[in-house]
């Protein structure tokens, strides 16, 4: 089993933590595990930002967890953009939490990769070269959908989370 990891989401002004989220559906409300049918993004609007972290709950005998990567597979509807702070170069360090917004994100400013990046694009302790040798967290992953009036409603794509682990 090795290390145990989970993905957590943070919402609201109070940085309310929801551990081990089941999905990362995007919508017009700042809510973990939201229902995208009940909370659709109106074409032309943005989704609320998602603020998420990958948490190492226990090492399970492993010595190191590192090399976090995130990317999306599947097409967005129309010309919508999926923005993120995750990047392999000019990484901005660990962003400080701010209440998720549906205005254009000031943190998620680069396109989410649509295939596995060649190297880590989500840091630990503010560095892409960071590693966890004990329970702890990745930096915040911030991402947001930004749509256009002509975009199609109801597109489905999948976010991939990946890490390497030395046992």
């Amino acid at each position, binding site marked *: 089993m*090795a290390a145990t990891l989970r993905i957590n989401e943070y919402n609201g002004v109070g940085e309310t933590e929801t551990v081990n989220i089941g999905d990362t559906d995007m919508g017009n409300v700042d809510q973990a595990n939201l229902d995208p049918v009940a909370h659709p993004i109106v074409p032309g609007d943005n989704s609320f930002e998602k603020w998420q972290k990958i948490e190492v709950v226990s090492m399970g005998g492993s010595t190191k967890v590192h090399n976090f990567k995130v990317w999306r597979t599947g097409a967005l509807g129309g010309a919508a953009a999926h923005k993120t702070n995750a990047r392999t170069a000019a990484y901005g360090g660990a962003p400080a939490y701010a209440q998720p917004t549906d205005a254009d994100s000031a943190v998620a400013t680069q396109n989410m990769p649509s295939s596995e990046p060649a190297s880590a694009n989500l840091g630990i302790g503010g560095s892409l070269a960071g590693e966890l040798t004990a329970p702890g967290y990745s930096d915040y992953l911030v991402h947001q959908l930004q749509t256009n009036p002509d975009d199609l409603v109801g597109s489905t794509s999948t976010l991939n989370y990946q890490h*390497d682990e*030395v046992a």
Partner: protein
Amino acid sequence: MDNTMSKQFIFTNPATGQKEIVQRERWRWVAHYNDGALLRQFEDDTGIFHQFREIDQSKVESFQMVSDKNPEGLNLLIPPQGADLIHFYRKVRLAGTKDWITLYFFGWKIKDDRGRSLQKMICIYPDDRFALVDEIATEGGGKP
């Protein structure tokens, strides 16, 4: 389902001195030393788990990955001049699921006498197929 898959192993964390429970992996490594001795990641007879860093890499002749379905597994010869071993898990999770999919990577890395790095790495996929992979290793150093 093979009930040995759920077997728990004991590990004493060198950082804390605490004993920890480690679940057996689907694919496990076996280090074959040049004196005929073996070091197994999971010792079935004693229930002890060994970390990768416990391997005496100066003595490793070959590095084998085995599973219950593939007890012979894959046995990778190590260059006679020695090399840095590579072994790590790559785990992927797709949003909408709560399970991490594990890929097993192993191989070696060496530097030739001109300082160039040479790396051989194999990935074992969840369906037990495997492939030679070519990527920049994040593990292992490489002996000059």
